[in-house]
């Protein structure tokens, strides 16, 4: 390196530093869009309305005394039209309240509830 102007080495070093800082900034920007995407996707995939709806119809059916075909209606239609496995039972004789054990699974989201009348 004899005879060269060694100031240039500082310039190259600073160039490296600036490059690396750009590199990390780019990494952060890159990750931020992925975060937005996964959040939006998980919001879309969560079957909030489906769970609320099937839950309310199950509670209503038990309130009506579980008439004959309703249990199988809910099970079969959930599977064929909503793509969800729905299973529920209501154990009796435990106490004075109504208990319903609800299971819901659509392959992505699983929901279980032990509902008790108040």
């Amino acid at each position, binding site marked *: *390196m004899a*005879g*060269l102007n060694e100031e*240039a080495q500082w310039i*190259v070093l600073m*160039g*490296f530093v600036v*490059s690396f800082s*750009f*590199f990390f*900034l*780019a*990494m952060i*920007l*890159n990750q931020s*869009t992925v975060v*937005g*995407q996964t*959040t*939006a*996707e998980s*919001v*879309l995939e969560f079957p909030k*309305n*489906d769970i609320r*709806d*099937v839950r*309310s*119809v199950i509670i*209503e*059916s038990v309130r*009506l005394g579980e*008439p*004959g*075909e*309703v249990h*199988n*209606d*809910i099970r*079969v*239609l959930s599977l*064929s*039209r*909503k793509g969800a496995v729905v299973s529920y039972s209501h154990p009796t004789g435990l106490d004075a309240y109504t208990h319903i054990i609800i299971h819901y699974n659509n392959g992505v989201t699983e929901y279980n509830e032990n509902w008790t009348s108040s």
Partner: protein
Amino acid sequence: MVDESGQLYTIEGFAAAMIMLFTTYLVLSATSVYTPGDTHISDMQLEQIGTDALKMMNTPVSSNVKSPLQSIIETSNATTAAAAFNTTFLNYVNSRAGSNPDNLHYSAAVTYRNITAGDTTNNYPLASNGLLTGGEHPVRVTEWVIANIKLPGRNTVEPRAVLVEVLLWRD
């Protein structure tokens, strides 16, 4: 003898060029705006308003009367049922604050379990105010209803859980 310091300058030049090109590539690829969630926002809004409308229709005004939706499904006259559903549903989904009403289109059907055909599902049309031609982009909203009805293949009126399915779209 050639001055060999030129080689060092050349290598430095190459290194600097590589760093700059690589950084430019990274920065450009990182800042491209990519938000797939945006395209679904209007669908989500439509789905929500449809679900809310059906939920309101399936809510009785008091504990000893039937909900409007249950009454509509229990109506044996298909024309009367369709007219009642059409009026109430459009009233709910099309109302907007202030200005003119919205102009949504829908096609509603009732899906039930066919006991005599080995637990298959069938459906019959309930009401609609537009024909699906294939170019629309509808969303599907559903609502469970327990109603006292006589479904095809059954002899008596009995309580049954049916699924009201509505395809909803905006022109």
